[in-house]
């Protein structure tokens, strides 16, 4: 495993182009595009203000930089460096900006969710979509880029509009049976739309592309409900994480629950492997105080850590949430299927330092990673069943069915990994610190073995 040198970035804005060739990073008001292989700067663009959002177009030709404070969006072309485009939303404000799947339109959501403005880079045409709903996930494009689902709120009722992304034709418009729609997500095959209600009510609705209600699922009533929803890449399963610390898996044929994964504080499952991160302060021996050790002096302050396999039963650390506060820190907030839909990684908010990995084939717990600190972020390798996670310290953790490793990021100045992103090939990993980033290259020969 190799690590690149450290680069500057701001706002954790750093993205690899969809084709995997370029790496775009934002530093204050500058946009830097590098070659992923060589890490040489290919282009440098200067925006009008500090960039608050950056995104690649789907064809990796354009980069969008949004400056929400100024209500501005600037688009840069990789092929034509002198080409420029500026979209000014004016005094109406801007809270979110995104590419349409075709990479020729930009969708801007104005302040107060007054409307969604669709700007065409081809025709300079502008169109508006009124009544967008301000919610957890109000817009979703289907994976093939054909359709967009938009949550709307009119007359105190929830609606979903399905647009054809090609010409923004309104294909379907239907009212949903929700009290307060919180989010929607297309299945990866683009045929089913999952819609879920706000956490006050456990309700998940499944709509066909043509607006038919396929099924409704509700696990319980009265207590806080759905916290997160994720489709498996195969569109076969819908995983629903909720405030009752359970993940429920629905199947795609009957839309009934297949199983539920509980997240108990004590693990009695003997088949699951519990990896516990153990921290060791490096012993300062006399012979260790060599020159070599001093040169990489900052590692002295860093701790060594490794995983130990704990025999079950294992008691996990649990933080009781404050019941008086809104959005209690309990329940499954993050769910992620591996790219082959074989594994599911989950995180329960009141056990913030634990990541659970479930085998979807066997519908059972495979591994539990107990970290010393709260897990910030985890992401599956887009090619292999390999999970990378970070906890805001100087280490990178990797899990695969073969085992679990913790890797110290060998950089100067105490690089603390706040977030990470896989390269689409799965060969490298972008680690994001507070103000820096660094690339981590995987030894794939090892994997190939």
């Amino acid at each position: 495993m190799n690590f690149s040198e450290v680069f500057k970035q701001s706002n954790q804005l750093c993205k690899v182009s969809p084709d995997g060739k370029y790496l775009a990073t934002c530093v204050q008001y500058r946009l830097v595009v590098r070659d992923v292989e060589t890490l040489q700067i290919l282009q440098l663009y200067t925006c009008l203000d500090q960039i608050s959002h950056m995104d690649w177009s789907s064809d990796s030709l354009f980069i969008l930089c949004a400056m929400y404070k100024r209500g501005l969006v600037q688009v840069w072309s990789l092929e034509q460096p002198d080409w420029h485009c500026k979209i000014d939303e004016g005094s109406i404000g801007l809270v979110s900006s995104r590419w349409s799947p075709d990479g020729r339109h930009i969708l801007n959501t104005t302040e107060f969710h007054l409307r969604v403005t669709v700007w065409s880079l081809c025709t300079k045409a502008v169109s508006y979509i009124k009544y967008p709903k301000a919610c957890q996930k109000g817009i979703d494009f289907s994976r093939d880029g054909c359709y967009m689902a938009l949550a709307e709120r009119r007359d105190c009722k929830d609606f979903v509009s399905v647009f054809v992304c090609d010409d923004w034709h309104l294909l379907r418009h239907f009212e949903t049976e929700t009290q307060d729609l919180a989010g929607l997500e297309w299945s990866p095959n683009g045929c089913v739309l999952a819609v879920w209600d706000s956490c006050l009510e456990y309700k998940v609705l499944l709509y066909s592309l043509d607006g038919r209600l396929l099924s409704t699922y509700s696990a319980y009533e009265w207590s806080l409900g759905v916290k997160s929803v994720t489709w498996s890449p195969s569109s076969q399963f819908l995983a629903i994480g909720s405030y009752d610390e359970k993940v429920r898996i629905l199947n795609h044929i009957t839309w009934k629950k297949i199983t539920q994964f509980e997240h108990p504080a004590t693990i009695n499952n003997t088949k699951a492997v519990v990896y516990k991160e153990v921290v060791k302060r490096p012993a300062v021996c006399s012979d260790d105080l060599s020159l070599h050790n001093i040169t990489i002096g900052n590692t002295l302050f860093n701790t060594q850590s490794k995983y130990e396999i704990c025999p079950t039963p294992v008691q996990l650390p649990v933080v009781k949430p404050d019941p008086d506060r809104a959005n209690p820190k309990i329940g499954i907030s993050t769910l992620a299927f591996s790219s082959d839909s074989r594994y599911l990684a989950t995180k329960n908010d009141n056990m913030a330092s634990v990541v659970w990995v479930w085998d979807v084939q066997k519908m059972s717990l495979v591994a539990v990673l107990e970290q010393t600190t709260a897990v910030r972020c985890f992401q599956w390798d887009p090619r292999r069943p390999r999970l990378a996670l970070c906890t805001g310290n100087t280490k990178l953790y990797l899990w695969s069915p073969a085992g679990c490793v913790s890797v110290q990021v060998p950089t100067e100045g105490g690089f603390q990994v706040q977030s990470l992103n896989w390269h689409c090939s799965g060969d490298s990993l972008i680690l994001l610190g507070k103000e820096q980033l660094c690339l981590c290259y995987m030894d794939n020969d090892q994997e190939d073995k």
Partner: protein
Amino acid sequence: MPESSSEVMDIRSSSVEYRPSPLRQFSQSSLPLHRDYMLSDFCTEHNVQECLSHINQEVSSLGLPPLWTEASGSSEMKVVPVLNCMYDLIQLHHRGLRTLENMEVEQLKTSSNVDFLQLSSTHLKEQLELSKRENTGLLERERQLQLKVKTLQNSLKTEKEEVQKLQNIIASRASQYNHEMKRKEREFNKLKERLNQLLADKKEKKQAIDVLNSIGRADGKRSLWKTVKTEAKHEGEMYKTLLSNYDTRQRELLLENAELKKVLQQMKKDMVSILSSRKTALRGDKHQDAGKQVDAEEEEEVFDSSKESVELYCDQAREKLTNSIRLQWRRLKSHVERLDSQASLAQMGENTNSDAVARETHEDEMDRLKLEIQQCKDLIQTQQHLLQQLSSPCDDETASLLSDCFMLQEKERFREEWKTLEEQRKIFERERRNFTEAAIRLSHERKDFEDDRALWLKHQFLSLSPFADSKKPQMSKSKSAFSISKTEVSAETDPEKLIKCRSGATSPIPRCVQLTPPPTDDLHRTLCLMPDNRSTKPKRKVEHVEESQISFNGNIPVQCKQWNDSEDQYSHLLPKEKTSSI
């Protein structure tokens, strides 16, 4: 102790007997007692006569013989009666003293008893007091608890009410909030509209796009006008994607189904091969399994024939396949279970022997047993077959055979009946002998009685004659004889009746047998009567006769019934019923 108590009782009774006299004695002798202290100037020379009469009176009042009688005439007092009297008096006095002592003892006893009772009563009173106190305490506690319960109930009620109230409040607030939210949302929407309008009206800083030169579409095509056609196209595309999705899904399902079917077929094949190998191994000893085998082969054939159609996903074929699989599976399961049991048996039975040997022997044993079972089954089957043949209406030959069979059965039954009847007859014979003996005895007795009567009549006759009272004791003796004979007179008629009845009943032997109670029973009964001390022979006889008569009277309808029953092939029940009827 019992002796003393009896004594006491005696004394008491005596005291009771004498009660009036001591009372009087006391009341009257208060004077003489005083005189005793003055050392009796009761009797002087002068008043001897009066004293004498007084004492006489007193003594007579005490129930003693008088000291002297005027009839005797002499004023001289005889010493002997006086001494006797004195002695009696002393005796009386002693007795009185003794009773007094006894009474004192008794009184002591009673007083101690009373003391004890008082003590116990005080004790009990104390206890009562204590328990009363306790009771009041408990009552008090209960009251308090009840009070507590009441208060708790009240608080519960209030709590419930509170909860209800709060729920109502929550509900009302929720509805209120919902309403408010809707209102706010409406307002918010209005504001949004207004803002939109304002922003649209405002020219000062318009939304703008500033592009150097517009770029081509990603697909290189030109954008199309929105027309009805495009709409239709969109719809079409949507349905196309949906359809393709369903298509892929169906294909996947088909694939899965095919896979599963393949697995099923494989399973089936394996099972068939396993089972057939087993069968061929067993075929050597089994003859009867041939039918089964044929069945199985048939099934296999069916399966084979269905094999081709399986590919066509024909419903029937599928059904057949699943059915046959199910069947085979069941067989395999039973086979495995059998193997299991065999294995366990082998384990249990032979620890030392090697497994293979055990299994072999077991298999041999199993085969043998199976053979046996099969043979038994064969037998049963043939029997069933025959039975079926019989039950079905058939030709004369079989009918005659049938009737023969029935005849045989009937004969057998009759023979059985005959045997029982024979037995009963024997019993009856014995009984009759008993009766004849009894009759002989009776006649003897009658003769005796007749003699007695003659004697008595003679005496009567003689007593009427002037030479009477010569033999008093003899008369009393004859009287006692008469008392016996009187019963005998009443009994005299009974044997006759009995005989009459019997003569009426004897004509069919079996019936008579049924009528008479078994002698053992009778004997037993008489034995039972023995302890009643009515051991005089004639008396017992009378009773017996009476009883038998009762049994006669009660038995006649029963007997008829029994006969009917015996005709209904329940002859073996006869003795039982008979005893029960008696």
